[in-house]
């Protein structure tokens, strides 16, 4: 396309080592003005590292970066921002203690008479966010909003900051379909204005939908840069993995009557005022209940009540037919529950501890402090899951904070698998996980189900739900509005059920419009 002309942003021979482990070796990268350039690769391939180097968050060991032909050397993120490069890093790096507006305008607060003007910042924030269909109180602190909202705010900030280049590292990891299409239309606009956009994702659909070119990284090396047009999907995957990927079975699970199977736990009229309306849910052994809904529909809240993180103010819980109540996750775990949380950075990883320690943490906590797992047992468990989930780490003793985002996610998953729970709740388990591992996790869920584990899986990825769910709970506006039985589960039916639920209970997000949007989206 733009060949011949000087690219907007260009990196030559970028190399980066961390404590002797090579994360990037001799990577070249080119971004043209007015293009959307996808960056793909397995977990730990070096994508995030590359963009951190481009934006001055890391120093490179070797290599050259040029913006519009001029050699640049951003010493920190501020430098990069001044050069017109706006970035959303993988872990949503905003400040939960500041308001939405303050987050949007940090570092470039609107001023009046030399002093900052919060009023003006609030006004402009509302304006900006409305482009993303987000009508929220911008004077509330960010901590009160869900991961998804934070993600949108982060994107809005980066877009607003980027004069020339916009870099997005897995921006869509926790967005639903409607949010994604809104984001894409904004990206198209920016592209038309001549911005260069780097877009990292593990969703190939999205790559094909929006990108002009794609660069593939593998093991810290660049494999190729290709125009999307004419690139076969199979080819893309094999370039990324360095091998062929077995074709995913996209059909749903066999319709089996699970109601005959033993009941692991039942929840009757369990609810919490202001959080989630009372719901009934019976979990049988050997079934996977998928949970679908829009952002903020109350999926996470449902899980939190089931796991004792929040206490219901009404309803009955029974485990193995006996009444139970848990006031803390610890008690839930003693009943054989497990919960892999959505926000891995805040609720998941214990960042200074090693991969080994992170894996065995829940198991050890359940055994009690007096019965330590021996070092050998710990190593065995860790090694088993590092192999099973293909966790990319140079060493099981590496602090988890030095792993790539997707690999951290796998470690947290391993933590819960290691406890071998009877009821496992997974909140967005495949967030940020690459295609290879994604297929692996879907296979794993199937296997656990066959072994008789009961699973509740929350996911925004409908295809994924279709692949493993034996039934699907549908939530809208903090209510359980419906359920799809095995056999009737397709992305389209789920979408319709969500939309129907939204229409029933027009909530703060303007139900009608949303429902129409979702359906339109589903049709596209």
């Amino acid at each position: 396309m733009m060949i011949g002309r000087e690219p907007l942003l260009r990196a030559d021979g970028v190399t980066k080592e961390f404590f002797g482990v090579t994360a990037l070796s001799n990577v070249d990268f080119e971004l043209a003005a007015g293009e959307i350039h996808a960056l793909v690769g397995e977990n730990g391939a070096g994508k995030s590292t590359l963009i951190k180097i481009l934006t001055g968050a890391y120093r490179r060991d070797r290599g050259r970066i040029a913006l519009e032909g001029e050699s640049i050397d951003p010493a920190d993120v501020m430098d990069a921002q001044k050069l017109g490069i706006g970035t959303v890093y993988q872990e949503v790096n905003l400040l939960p203690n500041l308001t939405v507006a303050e987050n949007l305008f940090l570092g470039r607060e609107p001023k009046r008479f030399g002093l900052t003007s919060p009023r003006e910042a609030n006004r402009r924030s509302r304006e900006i966010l409305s482009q993303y269909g987000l009508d929220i109180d911008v004077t509330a602190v960010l901590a009160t909003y869900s991961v998804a909202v934070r993600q949108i705010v982060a994107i809005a900030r980066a877009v607003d900051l980027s004069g020339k280049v916009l870099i997005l590292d897995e921006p869509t990891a926790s967005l639903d379909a409607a949010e994604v299409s809104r984001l894409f239309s904004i990206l198209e606009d920016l592209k038309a204005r001549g911005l260069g956009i780097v877009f990292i994702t593990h969703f190939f659909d999205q790559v094909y939908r929006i990108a002009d070119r794609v660069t593939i990284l593998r093991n810290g090396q660049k494999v190729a840069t290709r125009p999307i047009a004419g690139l076969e999907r199979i080819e893309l995957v094999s370039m990324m993995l360095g091998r062929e990927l077995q074709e995913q079975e996209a059909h749903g699970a066999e319709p089996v009557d699970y109601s005959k199977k033993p009941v692991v736990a039942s929840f009757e009229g369990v609810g919490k005022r202001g959080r989630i309306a009372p719901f009934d849910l019976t979990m049988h052994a050997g079934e996977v209940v998928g949970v679908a809904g829009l952002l903020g529909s109350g999926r996470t809240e449902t899980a939190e009540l089931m796991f004792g993180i929040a206490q219901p103010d009404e309803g009955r819980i029974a485990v193995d037919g006996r009444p139970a109540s848990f006031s803390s996750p610890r008690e839930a775990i003693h009943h054989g529950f497990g919960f892999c949380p959505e926000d891995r950075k805040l609720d998941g990883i214990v960042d200074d501890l090693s991969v080994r320690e992170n894996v065995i943490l829940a198991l050890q906590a359940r055994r009690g402090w007096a019965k330590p797992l021996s070092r050998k047992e710990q190593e065995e468990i860790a090694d088993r899951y590092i192999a099973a989930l293909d966790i990319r780490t140079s060493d099981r003793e590496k602090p988890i904070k030095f792993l790539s985002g997707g690999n951290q996610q796998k470690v947290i998953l391993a933590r819960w698998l290691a406890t071998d729970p009877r009821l496992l709740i997974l909140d967005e388990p495949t967030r940020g996980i690459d295609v290879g591992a994604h297929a692996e996790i879907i296979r794993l869920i199937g296997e656990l189900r066959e072994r008789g584990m009961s699973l509740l899986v929350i996911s925004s990825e409908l295809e994924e739900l279709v692949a493993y769910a034996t039934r699907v709970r549908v939530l809208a506006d903090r209510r359980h509005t419906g359920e799809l039985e095995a056999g009737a589960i397709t992305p389209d039916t789920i979408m319709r059920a969500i939309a129907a639920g939204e229409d029933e209970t027009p909530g703060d997000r303007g139900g009608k419009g949303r429902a129409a949007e979702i359906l339109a989206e589903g049709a596209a």
Partner: protein
Amino acid sequence: MTSSRLFPLATTFVIFLIAYGLCIAEFPNMLSTRVVGNLLTDNAFLGIAAVGMTFVILSGGIDLSIGSVIAFTGVFLAVAMGDWGVPPVLALVIVLALTTAFGALMGAMIHYLAMPPFIVTLAGMFFARGMAFLISIDSVPITADLYDTLQGLYYRMPGGGRLTFIGVAMLAVVLLGIVLAHFTSFGRNVYAIGGNRQSAELMGVPIARTTILIYALSSFLAGLAGIAFSLYTSAGYSLAAVGVELDAIAAVVIGGTLLTGGSGYVAGTLLGILIMGLIQTYIVFDGTLSSWWTKIVIGLLLFSFIALQRGLVWLSARRRGAAMPA
């Protein structure tokens, strides 16, 4: 809503009013302009220093050196004006420059050497008091005319209370602190660093400059507090203001600022100072407590304030949760 962010602050204010009311019920004399004037004047130096401490704590740090810096300032001023014959105004300028530079140095060590603020400022605490000792171990009176003038500047309120220069200066510092915290980029950056240093860095906040400025500001205000203290006592003494850092920290925290950083208000600090002053005044008015009961009662009152505050905030969080549409 913003009002919910201000809730802890409002709670603290209400607690203060109730407590004052209770005191008056027991000792009607406490409702006099003298007591009000005293609250401001007696706590002026602490208030000024606590404003600086608020910024430090908002950024997630801590400054243990302020008490020593106050002592150093006093001794330096006394000896400079007395023995060395430095003109008073010049001495004031020099001492503020010295303390500010001292704070900047601590900030630079904290940032560039990645050392914990607690320890850097602990060393700073030893150092500043040590320097005060080196200048003079005696308590040195200050006799400059400037001091007489400033001490003579007060407004006599009806009822005999005095609104003194240093009391008003403290209020002015609090006001400026509020503006600095909430209406400048520097203020935003302080909150940002306190929220999460790494994120702030990735959002382009100038960490190095802000950190150095924060500690420079704190030491500058400690210097100013030292000047207020020397006006208060007309003397410099190297053993003065021992433990003031803990009083300041307590005031900041009682005022609703989180020690983990990123959340709190300068105005809250003023309330914290007033609450602590009220506790002391109450104890003196009571006048029956032995030395040891004084300590125990201060501890208990401190505990009740904090527990009450937490209880109210907790209750309101529950109420607000329930008020949302189910």
